[in-house]
């Protein structure tokens, strides 16, 4: 790989991301650092994954610690063209409800 290849790869990934973003209504990211996992982030993630297993409109991803460990589990929801909204103290139930709300519009 050359530096140019790397730049090209980055562009490809970005445009790929942009394309999937267009197809998706909602992008959900769960904080999965140790703090998040201890606070129950795994349950939130699994709940969302089972709930939206066949749903093309939702993309579920995980990330590291955002820094607000006292507010875990943290969930970020992004809708194309809107600022991302961050939710604190997630439970599987709340996460499902919020995600369903976004999907419904």
């Amino acid at each position, binding site marked *: *790989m050359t530096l140019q290849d790397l730049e090209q790869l*980055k562009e490809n990934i970005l445009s790929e991301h942009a394309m999937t973003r267009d197809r998706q209504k909602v992008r959900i990211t769960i904080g999965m650092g*140790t703090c998040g996992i201890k606070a129950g982030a795994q349950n939130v993630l699994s709940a969302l994954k089972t709930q939206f297993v066949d749903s093309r409109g939702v993309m579920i991803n995980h990330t590291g*610690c955002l*820094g607000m460990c*006292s507010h875990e589990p943290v969930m970020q929801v992004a*809708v194309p063209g*809107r600022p991302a909204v*961050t939710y604190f103290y997630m439970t599987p139930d709340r996460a499902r409800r919020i995600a369903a709300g976004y999907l419904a*519009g």
Partner: protein
Amino acid sequence: MSHSSHILICRGTACVSAESREVQTEFGKQLKQRGLQEQVRVVHTGCFGFCARGPVMVILPQGTMYCEVRVEDVREIIEKHILGGQTVERLLFKDPVTQEVTEKIDDIDFFKKQVRIALKNCGHINPDDIREYIARDGYKALGTVLTKHSPEEVINIIKKSGLRGRGGGGFPTGLKWELTRKSPGKLKYVICNADEGDPGAFMDRSILEGDPHSVLEAMAIAGYAIGAGQGFIYVRAEYAIAVQRLTTAISQAREMGVLGKGLFETDFEFDIELRLGAGAFVCGEETALITSIEGNRGEPRPKPPFPAQAGLWGKPTLINNVETLANIPAIILNGAEWYAGFGTEKSKGTKVFAIAGKIGNTGLIEVPMGITLREVIYDIGGGIPEGRKFKAAQTGGPSGGCIPAGLLDTSIEYDTLLEAGSMMGSGGLIVMDDSDCMVDIAKFYLEFTCDESCGKCTPCRVGTKRMLEILERITEGKGTIDDIDLLKELGHGIKEASLCGLGQSAPNPVLSTLKYFEDEYIAHARDKVCPAGVCKKLSSIRIVPEECKKCGACAKVCPVDAIEGKPRELHEIDPDKCIKCGKCIEKCCFKAIKR
């Protein structure tokens, strides 16, 4: 055309009495004036259940909830939120019980004063997917360095950036790289010190869990700069998630061709191996860490020779801490001047802190050097909860010390913290309020170092034990005033005579609390009183007769039946039976029981 936003306004009884109808009318009016009535639909709903904060409204699709919205606020909501896509912070909903907040992340006070360089990707990318790292310019710094800079140029960039070691010592990183490069020898190593052991510190863990590739990339850059082809990451076995993410990251990097042979079509090769610690705090010390990777008991060696001269298997070795490394790619991409633009003259850039203890927002922050402790604790940390008073901040863990309220405006720099009798340390910051006993805190840290002393040198092995015994004596009411002088003498002796950083810094928590809170030591040793009521043998619990309502609740909850008196009789605590567990204090609704 469909509506792109919905505004839901509560028309429950409470909100209507708080003029929610007027707010709705105003929205309708202003949206029409701006020709937005097609895009934004205003509807009223039933009660949201937050009547105390009415009128309440929610904007969809973001789901942002605003409270106590007045007619005057309507214009701002339309301009800022609907048109500008920003949240109107002052109207956001905060749950008074859980402090639960729903809002846009950058608008929170917590993030406003932060500058995130080492943490730039944490919480933003999926650490298990190298492509997300590449999408945010990952490995571009490595590619640039390999194809456009000589090793000397790279070292110069790091030197010019002013970056100093973030593991605690604060040694200039560029100089360390240069020394290792100049050491004679063909075989050299790069080690990433991820043996983060200070109680209360988790900066490195978060970086490894949230952005492992930044550390791998930096190690390869360092390898190129010093002339090494092999790197080791020495990480605590207790950090299971970090280990797993690192393992994934290393194999993805090899697959992608950014680790291994012929990187970026040059003849430079670099690979990384993971080594797990096995539960020994002293292995965070660089020479002990090297001995541990070599497969031995992790005991430190005398310096010199420094690792840069003779490190792993006797070869020149560069050891950098996780956070130090995480800064490197950003410095290469943005330039040394950019990085040196943050911070102060002698402490450049940013520092990550793990804030914990008696503080509103516990968590992980990255701030520019030179920020004051007050800003960190009050503006970012949200201050001291429960209306209590700030007493001291502990920085640097078991190697550091306490900074009292009088020095809250100290700026956070390597040298100012040293002057204050503490140190930057790896970045643990524990806040204490007036209910904490400083003697007890010092004892806690000494118990830790005493337990973790490797036993190789006598001052540390025996000295910390003797200091701990004196502190135990003092907190149990068996101390004398002479013990305080003895503590100082021993402490200075251990600092002078110990072999490695562990022993040289172990007395710091005691010496710094003695410096600022000697009166508390005197109260314990001479007057046999613990002013904070923490040391059980030196505190008593009593019932204030005038405030006692004679309900009998305390007697019922007492686990040792130390409280005499039936309901409707005056209660008293039998000091001989009382074990000072404090259950009665918690139980008493009238706050009639005091320490």
